[in-house]
């Protein structure tokens, strides 16, 4: 496929003009605290009113049917303009693609419009205290009851669940079945009777995630995604999005790299060539990620396990870029501010969406075809 970048220039210009008018001049408070969460929710509504919150979705759900190229361009413009972090990101990037693939028309019509407007903000509830990398060992249960399911057990590390409205994730519905079978994927309101949430402070103390305790929480059949018992397959269709381009778009890193270059101009010591090289590397890698993005959307075959390559690349780039910024700031690097906030955020990248150790195993075994550990 040929990518014609000039064909998207009118779209780029429109987005740029709108963002110039609307992006808040002063950064919003952190979206990981209650006040900031509300401000970011209001921002989602504003984006939505301009039909810019979910450009790649069909129009009926609040999108513009944008092509993947237009989406990449939107993201570039968004982050270049200093657009606020997306408080709806886990719904938009991790639940919506799952619904497009496995949801019923009724579910799409019910869930997507309020997700697009920020009226309902979604939290991913997959991990459990005993099930992190080994997600298939999860133990929270969904038990059949009249007209639906009863949820019991515990989920944890659910990003933004302290303030979000609804959650989604796999539960064990058939304790007898082999561990990858017998899971069912469900959606539930976080204020449902029987759910207790405990916010957890991330490493800078902000309540960025939460633990969820389920005590006979009723979920009607209509909130099951896909077939009961097919939850693993449904979940795995999400991981491609989580590791692939959508969760962390090139635009984010291009904008961050540009800001790093600016910081270098202000604070850099021209004699410090080691630091200069790190700045250059961050910029080069952000550009590589952009070009790789163009390549990815030009391909017709499924990217499959190669999304693991992508996940390692962006997460390690993000850490290195922010470390360089802190080091440039010298003794001011430890002080609270936008660079430190970005650094703290970047530190989690090698852990969530499948740890980078797991991704390296996936690359070695499924992309490179090396023998599986332990298999004889």
């Amino acid at each position, binding site marked *: 496929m040929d990518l014609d970048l000039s064909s998207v220039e009118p779209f780029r210009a429109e987005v740029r003009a709108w963002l110039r008018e609307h992006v808040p001049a002063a950064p919003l408070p952190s979206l990981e605290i209650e006040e900031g969460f509300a401000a970011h929710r209001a921002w989602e509504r504003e984006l939505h009113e301009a039909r810019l919150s979910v450009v790649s979705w069909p129009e009926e759900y609040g999108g513009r049917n944008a092509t993947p190229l237009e989406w990449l361009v939107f993201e570039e413009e968004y982050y270049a303009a200093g657009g606020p972090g997306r408080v709806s990101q886990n719904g938009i990037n991790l639940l919506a693609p799952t619904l497009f693939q496995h949801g019923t028309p009724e579910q799409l019509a019910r869930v997507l419009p309020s997700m697009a407007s920020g009226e309902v903000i979604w939290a991913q509830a997959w991990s459990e205290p005993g099930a992190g990398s080994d997600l298939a060992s999860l133990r929270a249960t969904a038990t059949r009851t009249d007209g639906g399911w009863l949820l019991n057990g515990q989920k*944890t590390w659910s990003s933004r669940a302290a303030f979000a409205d609804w959650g989604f994730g796999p539960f064990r519905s058939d304790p007898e079945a082999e561990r990858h079978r017998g899971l069912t994927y469900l959606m539930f309101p976080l204020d449902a009777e029987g759910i207790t949430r405990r916010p*957890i*402070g991330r*490493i800078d103390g902000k309540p960025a995630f939460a633990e969820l305790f389920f005590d006979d929480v009723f979920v009607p059949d209509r909130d099951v995604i896909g077939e009961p018992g097919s939850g693993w397959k449904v979940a795995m269709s999400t991981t491609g999005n989580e590791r692939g381009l959508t969760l962390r778009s090139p635009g984010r890193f291009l904008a961050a790299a540009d800001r790093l270059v600016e910081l270098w101009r202000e604070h850099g010591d021209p004699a410090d060539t080691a630091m200069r090289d790190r700045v250059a590397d961050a910029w080069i890698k952000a550009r590589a990620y952009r070009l790789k993005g163009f390549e990815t959307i030009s391909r017709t075959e499924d990217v499959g396990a190669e999304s693991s390559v992508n996940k390692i690349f962006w997460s390690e780039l993000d850490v290195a870029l922010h470390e360089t910024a802190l*080091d440039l700031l010298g003794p001011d690097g*430890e002080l609270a501010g936008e660079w430190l906030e970005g650094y703290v955020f970047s*530190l989690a990248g090698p852990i969530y969406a499948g*740890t980078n150790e797991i991704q390296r195993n996936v690359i070695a075994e499924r992309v490179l075809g090396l023998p599986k550990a332990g298999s004889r």
Partner: protein
Amino acid sequence: MRFVLDAEQRLFGETLGKLLTEAAVPGVVRDWATGRRERGLALWRSLADAGVFAVAVPESAGGAGPLPVELVTAFHELGRHGAPGPYAEAVAAAVLLDRLGDEAIAGRWLPAIAEGTALVTLALPPAVPYALDADAAGLALLVDGGRLCAAVPGGVRASLDPARRLFPVTPGEVLAEGPRVAAAAAEAYDMGVLACAAQLVGTGRRLLEVSVDYARTRRQFGRPIGEFQAVKHHLADALVGLEYARPLVHGAALAYGTPDFARDVSAAKAAAAEAAYAAAKIALQVHGAIGYTDEYDPSLLIRRARALYTAWGSPSDHRARVVASLAG
């Protein structure tokens, strides 16, 4: 040169380690971060009684120093436990006040530092532009060009490390002036750098131990995560870095009083910062999400390692000093 600690030095380290373990430092850090300093100040005094500051104060002024090997032994323990407060700053201040050659100032403050009766802190711009805990200090110093001044603290600046309460400072009363200030400040800086380097190695070491324990007990895929080669290699790498940072710190302490001291403390700080920060990132990675939480005590040390990485001169500042001394 002695490359290992003698029995007395080892005992000194063990005594401090015991005292710090009993103090349950993570709770003290959390108090300190919110301005509740009672337990932190009590710890400061008991560490002073055990000789932490005396090793930096000469015998003539009520101390037992200078004993640089004991000093790095003590700071290794402070780093292991993550004690909050301006410890490195206080020993640097002791060196500064001693070298100034002003008997009134030295007589007034050195015994107080040795005994731990006052929290003492200092700022040495540009490498140390903020004064840690200046709001609670009995004496806060600022070296402002060629003048030594009392430091007047502004509003606190939040650090990644909640225990590091950093204060921008402006010069107040002038305590001393002239070339002797710069000379004393240079010696103070070297001692602060050495203390910070020792602290970093201790912090990294503890993070490695905690991570090894975690890798033995945390199970995924039906086995301890320490069985996975990726996890093993991370932890082994952390060890390699720390094992070669510690001798540089010890070697720098042995070089005290020689013309190589400044070069050697810089080499030690650069290596210690890299090794400890690498250990901190590995600790985070090996723990997964739990290591990324505020409530998990070792995450305090992860944050400390990053903050100390650029405190008392960044690794690139120190590399530049090493190269400059070699070129000269």
